[in-house]
Protein backbone atom coordinates (compact mmCIF):
# COMPACT_ATOMS: atom_id res chain seq x y z
CA UNK A 1 0.00 0.00 0.00
CA UNK A 2 1.48 3.30 -1.00
CA UNK A 3 2.22 6.08 1.43
CA UNK A 4 0.24 9.10 0.24
CA UNK A 5 1.21 11.47 3.00
CA UNK A 6 2.10 15.02 2.06
CA UNK A 7 2.20 18.40 3.74
CA UNK A 8 -0.85 20.60 3.49
CA UNK A 9 1.07 23.01 1.25
CA UNK A 10 2.13 20.19 -1.08
CA UNK A 11 -1.39 18.80 -1.26
CA UNK A 12 -3.06 22.12 -1.99
CA UNK A 13 -0.37 22.99 -4.55
CA UNK A 14 -1.82 20.21 -6.74
CA UNK A 15 -5.13 22.09 -7.05
CA UNK A 16 -5.01 24.05 -10.29
CA UNK A 17 -6.52 27.50 -10.71
CA UNK A 18 -9.97 27.15 -12.23
CA UNK A 19 -10.56 23.73 -10.67
CA UNK A 20 -13.97 22.55 -9.60
CA UNK A 21 -13.50 21.61 -5.95
CA UNK A 22 -15.92 19.70 -3.78
CA UNK A 23 -15.55 20.79 -0.17
CA UNK A 24 -16.56 18.33 2.53
CA UNK A 25 -18.71 18.92 5.60
CA UNK A 26 -21.87 20.97 5.94
CA UNK A 27 -22.48 24.56 7.14
CA UNK A 28 -20.50 24.92 10.38
CA UNK A 29 -19.41 21.31 10.64
CA UNK A 30 -16.37 19.25 9.61
CA UNK A 31 -15.36 21.44 6.70
CA UNK A 32 -11.66 21.21 5.78
CA UNK A 33 -10.77 24.52 7.41
CA UNK A 34 -6.98 24.13 7.28
CA UNK A 35 -7.07 23.27 3.57
CA UNK A 36 -9.36 26.21 2.86
CA UNK A 37 -6.87 28.51 4.60
CA UNK A 38 -4.04 27.01 2.57
CA UNK A 39 -5.98 27.69 -0.65
CA UNK A 40 -6.17 31.33 0.42
CA UNK A 41 -2.44 31.39 1.25
CA UNK A 42 -1.56 29.95 -2.15
CA UNK A 43 -3.72 32.56 -3.86
CA UNK A 44 -5.75 30.17 -6.01
CA UNK A 45 -8.27 31.77 -8.29
CA UNK A 46 -11.13 30.89 -10.59
CA UNK A 47 -12.30 27.98 -8.45
CA UNK A 48 -15.80 26.53 -8.62
CA UNK A 49 -16.95 25.30 -5.22
CA UNK A 50 -19.33 22.34 -5.02
CA UNK A 51 -21.17 21.70 -1.77
CA UNK A 52 -24.76 21.14 -0.65
CA UNK A 53 -24.56 23.70 2.17
CA UNK A 54 -21.51 25.90 2.67
CA UNK A 55 -20.67 28.67 5.11
CA UNK A 56 -17.23 30.01 6.15
CA UNK A 57 -15.46 28.02 3.41
CA UNK A 58 -17.47 29.59 0.59
CA UNK A 59 -17.54 33.00 2.28
CA UNK A 60 -13.80 33.21 2.98
CA UNK A 61 -12.77 31.90 -0.45
CA UNK A 62 -15.07 34.50 -2.07
CA UNK A 63 -13.57 37.28 0.09
CA UNK A 64 -10.05 36.16 -0.82
CA UNK A 65 -10.77 36.29 -4.54
CA UNK A 66 -10.32 32.54 -5.05
CA UNK A 67 -13.76 31.83 -6.48
CA UNK A 68 -15.46 32.16 -9.88
CA UNK A 69 -18.59 30.14 -9.17
CA UNK A 70 -20.43 28.40 -6.34
CA UNK A 71 -22.57 25.35 -7.05
CA UNK A 72 -24.51 24.90 -3.83
CA UNK A 73 -27.97 24.57 -2.39
CA UNK A 74 -27.38 26.87 0.56
CA UNK A 75 -24.68 29.32 1.60
CA UNK A 76 -25.03 30.73 5.09
CA UNK A 77 -23.98 30.33 8.70
CA UNK A 78 -27.41 29.24 9.94
CA UNK A 79 -29.17 30.85 12.85
CA UNK A 80 -26.13 31.58 15.04
CA UNK A 81 -24.71 34.01 12.46
CA UNK A 82 -27.00 34.39 9.45
CA UNK A 83 -26.05 35.13 5.87
CA UNK A 84 -22.59 34.91 4.29
CA UNK A 85 -21.64 38.55 3.65
CA UNK A 86 -18.59 38.09 1.42
CA UNK A 87 -20.41 35.54 -0.73
CA UNK A 88 -23.34 37.95 -0.99
CA UNK A 89 -21.09 40.84 -1.99
CA UNK A 90 -19.23 38.71 -4.54
CA UNK A 91 -22.46 37.52 -6.18
CA UNK A 92 -24.24 40.87 -6.00
CA UNK A 93 -21.27 42.62 -7.61
CA UNK A 94 -21.06 39.98 -10.34
CA UNK A 95 -17.59 38.70 -9.38
CA UNK A 96 -18.88 35.24 -8.44
CA UNK A 97 -21.58 33.28 -10.24
CA UNK A 98 -24.15 31.64 -7.95
CA UNK A 99 -24.88 28.34 -9.68
CA UNK A 100 -27.80 27.68 -7.41
CA UNK A 101 -28.89 24.15 -6.77
CA UNK A 102 -31.35 22.38 -4.58
CA UNK A 103 -29.18 20.30 -2.23
CA UNK A 104 -30.75 17.26 -3.88
CA UNK A 105 -29.57 18.36 -7.33
CA UNK A 106 -25.99 18.67 -6.07
CA UNK A 107 -26.33 15.09 -4.86
CA UNK A 108 -27.92 14.02 -8.16
CA UNK A 109 -25.09 15.64 -10.12
CA UNK A 110 -22.50 13.88 -7.96
CA UNK A 111 -24.38 10.60 -8.38
CA UNK A 112 -24.31 10.96 -12.16
CA UNK A 113 -20.56 11.46 -11.95
CA UNK A 114 -20.23 8.48 -9.62
CA UNK A 115 -22.25 6.22 -11.92
CA UNK A 116 -20.52 7.30 -15.09
CA UNK A 117 -23.67 8.64 -16.73
CA UNK A 118 -24.10 12.11 -18.22
CA UNK A 119 -27.10 13.17 -16.17
CA UNK A 120 -29.36 12.04 -13.35
CA UNK A 121 -33.12 12.25 -12.95
CA UNK A 122 -34.29 13.98 -9.79
CA UNK A 123 -37.74 14.02 -8.25
CA UNK A 124 -39.51 17.26 -7.46
CA UNK A 125 -38.47 20.71 -8.75
CA UNK A 126 -41.93 21.23 -10.28
CA UNK A 127 -43.16 24.79 -9.90
CA UNK A 128 -39.69 26.11 -9.11
CA UNK A 129 -37.98 28.75 -11.26
CA UNK A 130 -34.69 26.99 -10.60
CA UNK A 131 -34.73 24.58 -13.58
CA UNK A 132 -35.28 27.45 -16.02
CA UNK A 133 -32.71 29.65 -14.31
CA UNK A 134 -30.11 26.87 -14.29
CA UNK A 135 -31.01 25.17 -17.55
CA UNK A 136 -32.06 21.91 -15.89
CA UNK A 137 -34.10 20.09 -18.55
CA UNK A 138 -37.22 18.00 -18.14
CA UNK A 139 -37.12 14.88 -20.30
CA UNK A 140 -39.71 12.30 -21.25
CA UNK A 141 -39.57 8.98 -19.46
CA UNK A 142 -39.04 6.56 -22.36
CA UNK A 143 -41.08 3.92 -20.50
CA UNK A 144 -44.16 5.98 -19.58
CA UNK A 145 -45.94 9.25 -20.21
CA UNK A 146 -44.15 10.97 -17.33
CA UNK A 147 -41.50 13.62 -17.54
CA UNK A 148 -38.67 14.10 -15.09
CA UNK A 149 -36.05 16.77 -14.49
CA UNK A 150 -32.48 15.74 -15.11
CA UNK A 151 -29.34 17.46 -13.88
CA UNK A 152 -25.96 17.15 -15.56
CA UNK A 153 -23.13 15.20 -13.96
CA UNK A 154 -21.17 17.30 -11.49
CA UNK A 155 -17.65 15.94 -11.54
CA UNK A 156 -15.30 17.68 -9.12
CA UNK A 157 -11.69 17.91 -10.24
CA UNK A 158 -10.69 17.60 -6.60
CA UNK A 159 -12.59 16.71 -3.44
CA UNK A 160 -11.10 18.17 -0.27
CA UNK A 161 -12.35 16.38 2.84
CA UNK A 162 -11.45 16.47 6.51
CA UNK A 163 -11.88 13.31 8.58
CA UNK A 164 -11.14 12.38 12.17
CA UNK A 165 -8.71 9.59 11.38
CA UNK A 166 -6.85 8.20 8.37
CA UNK A 167 -3.99 5.90 7.59
CA UNK A 168 -1.05 6.74 5.36
CA UNK A 169 -2.68 4.97 2.42
CA UNK A 170 -5.74 7.20 2.62
CA UNK A 171 -8.36 5.09 4.34
CA UNK A 172 -10.47 7.67 6.13
CA UNK A 173 -12.70 7.17 9.14
CA UNK A 174 -15.51 9.62 9.77
CA UNK A 175 -17.10 9.88 13.20
CA UNK A 176 -20.72 10.97 13.11
CA UNK A 177 -22.46 12.40 10.07
CA UNK A 178 -20.72 11.78 6.77
CA UNK A 179 -22.57 14.57 4.97
CA UNK A 180 -21.83 14.31 1.22
CA UNK A 181 -18.17 13.43 1.79
CA UNK A 182 -18.42 9.85 0.54
CA UNK A 183 -20.28 10.93 -2.60
CA UNK A 184 -17.69 13.63 -3.21
CA UNK A 185 -14.85 11.14 -2.84
CA UNK A 186 -16.50 8.81 -5.35
CA UNK A 187 -17.39 11.53 -7.84
CA UNK A 188 -14.13 13.49 -7.86
CA UNK A 189 -11.19 12.90 -10.18
CA UNK A 190 -8.81 13.35 -7.25
CA UNK A 191 -9.24 13.33 -3.48
CA UNK A 192 -7.25 15.18 -0.83
CA UNK A 193 -7.92 13.88 2.65
CA UNK A 194 -6.90 15.87 5.70
CA UNK A 195 -7.15 14.07 9.03
CA UNK A 196 -7.04 14.95 12.70
CA UNK A 197 -4.54 12.15 13.05
CA UNK A 198 -2.80 9.60 10.91
CA UNK A 199 -2.77 6.17 12.52
CA UNK A 200 -1.60 2.68 11.66
CA UNK A 201 -4.32 1.43 9.34
CA UNK A 202 -3.77 -2.18 10.43
CA UNK A 203 -6.23 -1.45 13.24
CA UNK A 204 -8.88 -0.50 10.66
CA UNK A 205 -9.11 -4.16 9.64
CA UNK A 206 -10.89 -4.86 12.91
CA UNK A 207 -13.79 -2.65 11.83
CA UNK A 208 -13.47 -1.92 8.11
CA UNK A 209 -17.10 -0.74 8.01
CA UNK A 210 -15.99 2.30 10.01
CA UNK A 211 -13.88 3.45 7.08
CA UNK A 212 -16.03 5.86 5.08
CA UNK A 213 -13.44 6.68 2.41
CA UNK A 214 -11.44 3.77 1.00
CA UNK A 215 -7.81 4.39 0.16
CA UNK A 216 -8.07 3.59 -3.56
CA UNK A 217 -10.16 6.73 -4.04
CA UNK A 218 -7.63 8.93 -2.26
CA UNK A 219 -4.58 10.58 -3.78
CA UNK A 220 -3.14 12.58 -0.92
CA UNK A 221 -3.34 12.34 2.87
CA UNK A 222 -2.42 15.21 5.15
CA UNK A 223 -1.97 15.12 8.91
CA UNK A 224 -3.95 18.14 10.03
CA UNK A 225 -4.64 18.20 13.76
CA UNK A 226 -7.35 20.76 14.42
CA UNK A 227 -7.73 20.75 10.63
CA UNK A 228 -11.45 21.42 10.54
CA UNK A 229 -11.12 24.59 12.59
CA UNK A 230 -13.06 26.90 12.70
CA UNK A 231 -15.61 24.26 11.70
CA UNK A 232 -16.63 21.67 14.28
CA UNK A 233 -15.05 18.22 14.29
CA UNK A 234 -16.97 15.90 16.55
CA UNK A 235 -16.08 14.62 19.12
CA UNK A 236 -12.90 16.68 19.29
CA UNK A 237 -14.15 20.27 19.12
CA UNK A 238 -17.16 22.40 18.26
CA UNK A 239 -17.21 25.26 15.78
CA UNK A 240 -15.32 28.35 16.94
CA UNK A 241 -18.11 30.85 17.51
CA UNK A 242 -15.77 33.61 18.70
CA UNK A 243 -13.55 33.36 15.63
CA UNK A 244 -16.51 33.12 13.24
CA UNK A 245 -18.08 36.14 14.94
CA UNK A 246 -14.86 38.12 14.45
CA UNK A 247 -14.64 37.03 10.82
CA UNK A 248 -18.25 37.98 10.16
CA UNK A 249 -17.77 41.40 11.72
CA UNK A 250 -14.96 41.97 9.22
CA UNK A 251 -16.52 40.19 6.27
CA UNK A 252 -19.30 42.75 5.88
CA UNK A 253 -16.72 45.23 4.57
CA UNK A 254 -14.35 44.14 1.76
CA UNK A 255 -11.42 46.19 3.11
CA UNK A 256 -11.89 44.85 6.63
CA UNK A 257 -12.19 41.34 5.21
CA UNK A 258 -8.87 41.74 3.35
CA UNK A 259 -7.24 43.03 6.52
CA UNK A 260 -8.63 40.10 8.51
CA UNK A 261 -7.32 37.65 5.92
CA UNK A 262 -3.88 39.31 5.93
CA UNK A 263 -3.68 39.27 9.74
CA UNK A 264 -5.32 35.97 10.55
CA UNK A 265 -4.55 33.73 7.59
CA UNK A 266 -1.68 35.06 5.47
CA UNK A 267 0.55 36.21 8.36
CA UNK A 268 3.24 33.60 9.11
CA UNK A 269 2.26 33.37 12.78
CA UNK A 270 -1.38 32.71 11.92
CA UNK A 271 -3.18 29.40 11.47
CA UNK A 272 -0.48 26.75 11.38
CA UNK A 273 -0.41 24.45 8.40
Amino acid sequence: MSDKRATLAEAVATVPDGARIAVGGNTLHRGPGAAVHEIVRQGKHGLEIVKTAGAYDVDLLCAAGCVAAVSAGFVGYETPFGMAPAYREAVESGVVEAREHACATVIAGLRAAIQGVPFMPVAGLGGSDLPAARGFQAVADPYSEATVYVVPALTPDVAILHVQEADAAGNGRIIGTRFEDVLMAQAARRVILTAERITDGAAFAEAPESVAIPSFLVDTVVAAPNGAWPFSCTPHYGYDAAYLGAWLAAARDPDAAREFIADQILAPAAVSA
Partner: protein
Amino acid sequence: MIDSGARAAPWDMMAVAMARLLHSGETVFHGVASPLPMVAILLATHLHAPDLTYLNITGAIDAEPERLPESTVDPALLHRTRALVTLADLFDLSARGRLDVAFLSGVQIDAEGRINLSAIGSYQHPTVRLPGGAGSAMLMPTARRVILWRTKHDPRTFVERLDFVTAAGNVDRVVTPLGIFARHDHRLEVESLHPGVTPDAFREATGFAVAVGPETPVTSTPTVEELMVLRAIDPGGVVRSEFA
Protein backbone atom coordinates in the same frame (compact mmCIF):
# COMPACT_ATOMS: atom_id res chain seq x y z
CA MET B 1 -43.04 30.96 36.46
CA ILE B 2 -45.25 29.55 33.78
CA ASP B 3 -48.60 31.27 33.63
CA SER B 4 -50.81 30.22 30.76
CA GLY B 5 -53.09 33.17 31.49
CA ALA B 6 -50.41 35.60 30.32
CA ARG B 7 -49.92 36.06 26.59
CA ALA B 8 -47.35 33.58 25.31
CA ALA B 9 -44.12 34.89 23.83
CA PRO B 10 -44.20 34.66 20.03
CA TRP B 11 -41.49 31.97 19.95
CA ASP B 12 -43.38 29.82 22.43
CA MET B 13 -46.63 30.32 20.53
CA MET B 14 -44.95 29.38 17.25
CA ALA B 15 -43.18 26.31 18.64
CA VAL B 16 -46.38 25.06 20.25
CA ALA B 17 -48.48 25.78 17.15
CA MET B 18 -45.97 23.93 14.95
CA ALA B 19 -45.83 20.98 17.35
CA ARG B 20 -49.62 20.65 17.36
CA LEU B 21 -49.55 20.15 13.57
CA LEU B 22 -47.56 16.92 13.90
CA HIS B 23 -49.10 13.49 14.42
CA SER B 24 -47.90 10.24 15.92
CA GLY B 25 -46.72 7.84 13.24
CA GLU B 26 -45.50 10.56 10.89
CA THR B 27 -41.98 10.86 9.54
CA VAL B 28 -40.92 14.48 10.06
CA PHE B 29 -37.78 16.22 8.75
CA HIS B 30 -35.99 19.50 9.35
CA GLY B 31 -32.87 20.77 7.63
CA VAL B 32 -30.32 23.53 8.17
CA ALA B 33 -31.11 26.76 10.02
CA SER B 34 -34.25 25.32 11.63
CA PRO B 35 -34.28 25.88 15.42
CA LEU B 36 -38.06 26.29 15.68
CA PRO B 37 -38.85 23.07 13.79
CA MET B 38 -36.26 21.21 15.88
CA VAL B 39 -37.94 22.38 19.09
CA ALA B 40 -41.45 21.80 17.71
CA ILE B 41 -40.71 18.22 16.64
CA LEU B 42 -39.18 17.33 20.01
CA LEU B 43 -42.10 18.99 21.76
CA ALA B 44 -44.60 16.93 19.75
CA THR B 45 -42.74 13.70 20.58
CA HIS B 46 -42.95 14.55 24.30
CA LEU B 47 -46.63 15.47 24.14
CA HIS B 48 -49.13 13.98 21.72
CA ALA B 49 -46.93 12.28 19.09
CA PRO B 50 -44.61 9.81 20.86
CA ASP B 51 -44.44 7.58 17.79
CA LEU B 52 -43.43 10.33 15.41
CA THR B 53 -40.16 9.56 13.59
CA TYR B 54 -37.83 12.53 13.98
CA LEU B 55 -35.45 12.91 11.05
CA ASN B 56 -32.95 15.71 10.61
CA ILE B 57 -30.16 16.70 8.28
CA THR B 58 -27.50 15.03 10.45
CA GLY B 59 -29.00 11.68 9.45
CA ALA B 60 -30.01 10.88 13.03
CA ILE B 61 -33.26 9.06 13.70
CA ASP B 62 -35.26 9.85 16.84
CA ALA B 63 -32.30 11.56 18.45
CA GLU B 64 -32.72 12.81 22.01
CA PRO B 65 -30.34 15.75 22.18
CA GLU B 66 -29.03 16.58 25.65
CA ARG B 67 -28.65 20.21 24.73
CA LEU B 68 -30.28 21.97 21.82
CA PRO B 69 -27.84 23.62 19.40
CA GLU B 70 -28.51 26.81 17.43
CA SER B 71 -27.01 25.19 14.34
CA THR B 72 -29.43 22.46 13.34
CA VAL B 73 -26.70 20.44 11.62
CA ASP B 74 -24.82 20.20 14.91
CA PRO B 75 -23.48 16.81 16.07
CA ALA B 76 -25.48 17.43 19.27
CA LEU B 77 -28.46 16.29 17.21
CA LEU B 78 -26.97 12.79 16.95
CA HIS B 79 -27.32 12.10 20.66
CA ARG B 80 -28.89 8.69 21.36
CA THR B 81 -29.62 7.97 17.71
CA ARG B 82 -29.46 4.21 17.17
CA ALA B 83 -28.91 4.43 13.43
CA LEU B 84 -27.42 6.94 11.07
CA VAL B 85 -28.42 7.62 7.48
CA THR B 86 -27.25 10.26 5.03
CA LEU B 87 -28.90 13.41 3.78
CA ALA B 88 -29.13 11.71 0.38
CA ASP B 89 -31.09 8.88 2.04
CA LEU B 90 -33.53 11.42 3.50
CA PHE B 91 -34.01 13.18 0.16
CA ASP B 92 -34.62 9.78 -1.42
CA LEU B 93 -37.23 9.04 1.24
CA SER B 94 -39.09 12.19 0.25
CA ALA B 95 -38.57 11.53 -3.47
CA ARG B 96 -40.37 8.20 -3.23
CA GLY B 97 -43.27 9.73 -1.31
CA ARG B 98 -42.45 8.38 2.14
CA LEU B 99 -41.67 11.60 3.97
CA ASP B 100 -44.80 12.84 5.72
CA VAL B 101 -43.73 16.29 6.85
CA ALA B 102 -40.93 18.68 5.89
CA PHE B 103 -40.40 22.00 7.65
CA LEU B 104 -39.31 24.75 5.26
CA SER B 105 -39.18 28.53 5.29
CA GLY B 106 -38.96 31.45 2.91
CA VAL B 107 -37.66 34.99 2.94
CA GLN B 108 -40.65 35.74 0.71
CA ILE B 109 -43.87 33.71 0.75
CA ASP B 110 -46.76 34.31 -1.63
CA ALA B 111 -50.49 33.64 -1.41
CA GLU B 112 -50.05 30.20 -2.98
CA GLY B 113 -47.52 29.27 -0.30
CA ARG B 114 -44.63 29.36 -2.73
CA ILE B 115 -41.28 30.54 -1.37
CA ASN B 116 -38.26 32.59 -2.37
CA LEU B 117 -34.92 31.85 -0.73
CA SER B 118 -32.81 32.75 -3.76
CA ALA B 119 -32.62 36.45 -4.54
CA ILE B 120 -34.24 39.82 -4.00
CA GLY B 121 -34.43 41.89 -7.18
CA SER B 122 -33.34 40.41 -10.48
CA TYR B 123 -32.17 36.81 -10.24
CA GLN B 124 -29.17 37.37 -12.51
CA HIS B 125 -28.18 40.67 -10.87
CA PRO B 126 -29.69 40.50 -7.39
CA THR B 127 -29.97 43.36 -4.94
CA VAL B 128 -29.69 40.72 -2.23
CA ARG B 129 -28.31 37.28 -2.91
CA LEU B 130 -30.09 35.06 -0.39
CA PRO B 131 -28.67 31.80 0.99
CA GLY B 132 -30.59 29.54 -1.40
CA GLY B 133 -33.41 27.10 -0.85
CA ALA B 134 -31.29 24.17 0.43
CA GLY B 135 -33.53 21.13 0.01
CA SER B 136 -36.75 22.98 -0.64
CA ALA B 137 -37.14 22.80 -4.45
CA MET B 138 -37.04 19.02 -4.22
CA LEU B 139 -38.73 18.52 -0.86
CA MET B 140 -41.65 20.89 -1.33
CA PRO B 141 -43.28 18.97 -4.21
CA THR B 142 -42.37 15.51 -2.87
CA ALA B 143 -43.01 15.60 0.89
CA ARG B 144 -46.63 14.78 1.66
CA ARG B 145 -47.07 17.88 3.82
CA VAL B 146 -44.90 20.93 4.07
CA ILE B 147 -45.16 23.22 7.07
CA LEU B 148 -43.68 26.64 6.46
CA TRP B 149 -42.59 28.78 9.36
CA ARG B 150 -41.33 32.34 9.36
CA THR B 151 -40.52 34.52 12.36
CA LYS B 152 -41.15 37.72 10.42
CA HIS B 153 -44.69 38.52 9.40
CA ASP B 154 -44.69 41.74 7.41
CA PRO B 155 -45.61 42.87 3.89
CA ARG B 156 -42.02 42.36 2.66
CA THR B 157 -42.22 38.70 3.68
CA PHE B 158 -45.80 37.85 2.71
CA VAL B 159 -45.84 39.29 -0.79
CA GLU B 160 -48.17 39.44 -3.73
CA ARG B 161 -45.37 38.48 -6.11
CA LEU B 162 -42.17 36.59 -5.40
CA ASP B 163 -38.97 37.93 -6.93
CA PHE B 164 -38.07 34.29 -7.69
CA VAL B 165 -39.86 31.01 -7.06
CA THR B 166 -37.29 28.85 -5.30
CA ALA B 167 -39.82 26.16 -4.47
CA ALA B 168 -43.50 25.34 -4.76
CA GLY B 169 -45.47 22.34 -3.66
CA ASN B 170 -47.38 20.63 -0.93
CA VAL B 171 -47.72 23.42 1.59
CA ASP B 172 -50.21 22.54 4.28
CA ARG B 173 -49.78 25.28 6.91
CA VAL B 174 -47.77 28.44 7.43
CA VAL B 175 -47.00 29.42 11.02
CA THR B 176 -45.91 32.98 11.88
CA PRO B 177 -45.73 35.09 15.05
CA LEU B 178 -49.19 36.47 14.19
CA GLY B 179 -51.15 33.38 13.25
CA ILE B 180 -51.56 30.30 11.11
CA PHE B 181 -52.43 30.00 7.43
CA ALA B 182 -53.89 26.80 6.03
CA ARG B 183 -53.72 26.22 2.29
CA HIS B 184 -56.92 25.32 0.47
CA ASP B 185 -57.18 25.11 -3.31
CA HIS B 186 -53.66 26.47 -3.72
CA ARG B 187 -54.43 29.58 -1.71
CA LEU B 188 -53.35 30.48 1.82
CA GLU B 189 -56.32 31.21 4.07
CA VAL B 190 -56.15 32.46 7.64
CA GLU B 191 -56.88 29.56 9.93
CA SER B 192 -56.37 31.37 13.22
CA LEU B 193 -54.90 34.48 14.77
CA HIS B 194 -52.64 34.09 17.77
CA PRO B 195 -54.06 35.51 21.01
CA GLY B 196 -53.89 39.30 21.09
CA VAL B 197 -53.45 39.72 17.31
CA THR B 198 -56.23 41.80 15.77
CA PRO B 199 -57.65 41.12 12.31
CA ASP B 200 -56.49 44.60 11.23
CA ALA B 201 -52.94 43.98 12.44
CA PHE B 202 -52.81 40.66 10.59
CA ARG B 203 -54.21 42.18 7.40
CA GLU B 204 -51.77 45.09 7.49
CA ALA B 205 -48.83 42.75 8.05
CA THR B 206 -49.73 40.62 5.03
CA GLY B 207 -48.83 41.84 1.54
CA PHE B 208 -51.57 39.85 -0.22
CA ALA B 209 -55.31 39.95 0.35
CA VAL B 210 -56.53 37.84 3.25
CA ALA B 211 -60.02 37.19 4.56
CA VAL B 212 -59.81 37.90 8.25
CA GLY B 213 -62.30 39.41 10.67
CA PRO B 214 -63.94 39.16 14.08
CA GLU B 215 -65.15 35.66 13.21
CA THR B 216 -61.60 34.38 12.57
CA PRO B 217 -60.69 31.76 15.19
CA VAL B 218 -58.02 32.43 17.79
CA THR B 219 -55.13 29.97 18.21
CA SER B 220 -55.42 28.15 21.54
CA THR B 221 -53.05 29.66 24.07
CA PRO B 222 -50.20 27.31 24.97
CA THR B 223 -51.21 25.18 27.92
CA VAL B 224 -49.21 24.96 31.12
CA GLU B 225 -48.23 21.42 30.13
CA GLU B 226 -47.05 22.52 26.68
CA LEU B 227 -44.95 25.30 28.16
CA MET B 228 -43.51 23.10 30.92
CA VAL B 229 -42.43 20.46 28.43
CA LEU B 230 -41.05 23.16 26.13
CA ARG B 231 -38.91 24.56 28.99
CA ALA B 232 -37.72 21.07 29.90
CA ILE B 233 -36.65 20.33 26.32
CA ASP B 234 -35.15 23.74 25.69
CA PRO B 235 -33.97 25.24 29.00
CA GLY B 236 -31.47 27.46 27.16
CA GLY B 237 -34.11 29.11 25.02
CA VAL B 238 -32.85 28.13 21.54
CA VAL B 239 -36.49 28.63 20.54
CA ARG B 240 -35.82 32.39 20.78
CA SER B 241 -32.75 32.34 18.54
CA GLU B 242 -34.56 33.05 15.28
CA PHE B 243 -35.99 36.23 16.78
CA ALA B 244 -32.57 37.78 17.51
